[in-house]
């Protein structure tokens, strides 16, 4: 794994993010934009919930028979004149891509947006070998200029404000008039369009990801709103598709079901502007398109998730709805998660891919509010899976000593209900008495983590169990 992970420093990352004014301003756009748009799109389609069930079932069915669908897919790609390469891990995928680029004598490579390309760190590898990778999705282009990782899986530069983008463009596009006006976002877009248009036309190889692979026809599918993924794949001589094993679906009908929930969940659109189905290289009857078509199928730990509780995570279609609705993501943004995939889906997937020893903080950074699961188009039980990671972390003794002893102490009481009731009653009574005047505590022993940032409200004196019993009695009477 070459993409460096700062997931072990999640707490420090989060603290820094909370104090970053620029970031906090930019994160306001996530809360405002995505949630309402998704809700409106869902409300406009009475069949939306039924389609979510259908999407979940298609993915489950495919995963259960993944070996057979992969075989069928491979056969179809070959029959259409394309090449299929299998990569066990990131290093192997990088080597395959580099050797294809070298065979074609590539100097520059344009790239459509691909999270897997971030996962394998292909840009760095190409650069180290004298090939220039150019990100063409506007957001990806911006973060490439800044040397950053995406902070969101569909809106990679969501952590930035327009003034920051303007600074980057002035720093990098030095061939343009220094006095030009870039005060409006549309001017930034127009400049990026012109700069990247030349890059598209000059590229030797185009690399895209795949939202889906279709076994029936050997087709790879990308969805974009900008059209950059299309210019990436139809202009150069060689098109390389980088996809992981779980992108497979059986048929064109199946992918049409998934496409009906993808854009609605992601941006609230009926459909993304461009949905592109690519099958093999250009035909003798084509006037344009790539002469060579390669698909690199990456495993990188995913096959080991099959047959475990985490198999459900392989249904993910990378819409980003979970992070758009996550209060933790809203507070700290994507970079704090420390690796490629942020938010709730990242909190479940990252420990699978880089190990729970490195990414154990991520599944702990959740309030289990359940919004992620409620909006997931393929109904992944994200809170349940995060809980699984917490359990594994505990079993493997990776949880910090203070948390472990705290849990042990709680466990001691929880196993002795009479003692538990007595102790909680005594504690609540004492706290109510002590806090009776101010109604709150500015300081409490062993609760510094809480009282450092906010007051602790004084309990009323009654425990939850007491209240429960009282109200049940009241209801019966």
């Amino acid at each position, binding site marked *: 794994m070459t993409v460096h992970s700062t997931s072990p420093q999640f707490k420090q990352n989060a603290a820094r993010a909370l104090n970053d004014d620029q970031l906090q301003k930019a994160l306001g756009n996530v809360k405002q934009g995505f949630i309402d748009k998704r809700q409106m799109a869902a409300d406009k389609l009475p069949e939306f919930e039924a389609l979510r069930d259908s999407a979940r079932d298609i993915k489950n069915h495919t995963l259960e028979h993944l070996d057979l669908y992969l075989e069928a897919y491979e056969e179809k790609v070959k029959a259409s004149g394309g090449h299929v390469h*299998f990569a066990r891990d990131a290093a192997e995928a990088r080597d395959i891509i580099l050797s294809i680029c070298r065979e074609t004598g590539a100097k520059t490579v344009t790239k459509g947006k691909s999270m897997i390309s971030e996962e394998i760190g292909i840009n760095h590898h190409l650069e180290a070998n004298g090939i220039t990778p150019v990100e063409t999705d506007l957001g990806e282009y911006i973060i490439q200029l800044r040397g950053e990782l995406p902070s969101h899986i569909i809106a990679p530069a969501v952590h930035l404000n327009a003034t920051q983008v303007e600074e980057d463009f002035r720093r990098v596009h030095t061939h343009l008039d220094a006095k030009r006006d870039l005060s409006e976002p549309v001017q930034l877009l127009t400049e990026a369009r012109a700069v990247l248009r030349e890059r598209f036309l000059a590229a030797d190889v185009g690399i895209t990801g795949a939202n889906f692979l279709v076994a029936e026809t050997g087709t790879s599918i990308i969805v974009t709103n900008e059209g950059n993924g299309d210019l990436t794949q139809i202009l150069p001589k060689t098109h390389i598709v980088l996809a992981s094993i779980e992108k497979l679906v059986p048929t064109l009908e199946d992918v*049409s079901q998934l496409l009906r929930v993808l854009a609605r969940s992601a941006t609230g659109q009926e459909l993304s502007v461009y949905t592109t*189905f690519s099958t*093999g290289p250009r035909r003798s009857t084509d*006037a344009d398109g790539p002469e060579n078509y390669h698909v690199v199928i990456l495993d990188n730990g995913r096959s080991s998730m099959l047959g475990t509780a985490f198999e459900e995570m392989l249904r993910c279609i990378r819409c980003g709805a979970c992070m758009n609705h996550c209060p933790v993501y809203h507070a700290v943004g994507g970079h704090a998660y420390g690796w490629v995939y942020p938010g709730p889906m990242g909190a479940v997937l990252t420990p699978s891919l880089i190990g729970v020893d490195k990414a154990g903080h991520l599944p702990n950074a959740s309030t289990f509010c359940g919004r992620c699961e409620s909006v997931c188009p393929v109904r992944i039980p994200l809170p349940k899976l995060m809980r699984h990671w917490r359990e594994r972390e505990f079993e493997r003794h990776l949880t910090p000593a203070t948390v472990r002893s705290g849990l042990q102490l709680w466990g001691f009481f929880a196993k002795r209900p009479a003692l538990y009731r007595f102790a909680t009653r005594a504690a609540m009574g004492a706290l109510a008495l002590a806090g009776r005047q101010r109604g709150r505590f500015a300081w409490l022993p062993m609760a510094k983590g809480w009282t450092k940032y906010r007051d602790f409200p004084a309990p009323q004196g009654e425990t939850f169990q007491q209240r429960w019993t009282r109200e049940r009695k009241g209801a019966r009477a």
Partner: protein
Amino acid sequence: MSSRDDIFGNIRRSLGVKGTETIRRQMVEDRLERSPRGVIPKRGQVSGEERIALFKTMVETSLATVTEVASAAEVPQSIALFLRNHNLPATLRMGDDPRLKTMPWSDTTLDIAHGPSEGRDLSAVSHAFGGIAESGTLAMVSSADNPSTLNFLPDNHIVVVSAKDIASDYESVWNRVRFAYGKGSMPRTVNWITGPSRSGDIEQTLLLGAHGPRRLHVVVVRE
């Protein structure tokens, strides 16, 4: 062991299968053969005038513009008018589509170029394979008739679609693709296009004309 064998081996070990099970193989073959439909939204399940009206409404929802002409013979005039209304030069690029080529372009003063785009064209016209009323989507198939570069490089993309090719849903278009190319086969590129190019990557503000066309204009031919 090759990476391929390793990956298949690992998948099968995790799933607890061998890959030779007759029942599994049959189930997979059957699904690929029958390609069963899933949930089809009612919205698009209308016919005739209603379907064309829905298509046009959805095209406009996607921020494209749409107009209707009575016959193919009226298309050149309609496109010339569109270009004039937007103060665009009277130039147009198109592929070899016989449906487009036989239209009376000499009725207009348009300067027509043929073949794929190299990135310097302001306006291009393509003929769609079909339309999808459910979402106002155009289905384009690649060929010398309608080169894929015309869908993306020009600033203004004009798409002609026959009213009879406007389907209710995506699934109906796939059936037509299968009929034209054979079951399990596809043209090199199928583009579904729903509106003009856009980006929300700067402060989540929607801006049109990212890398693809800034304008998308649809001409529905009735006859």
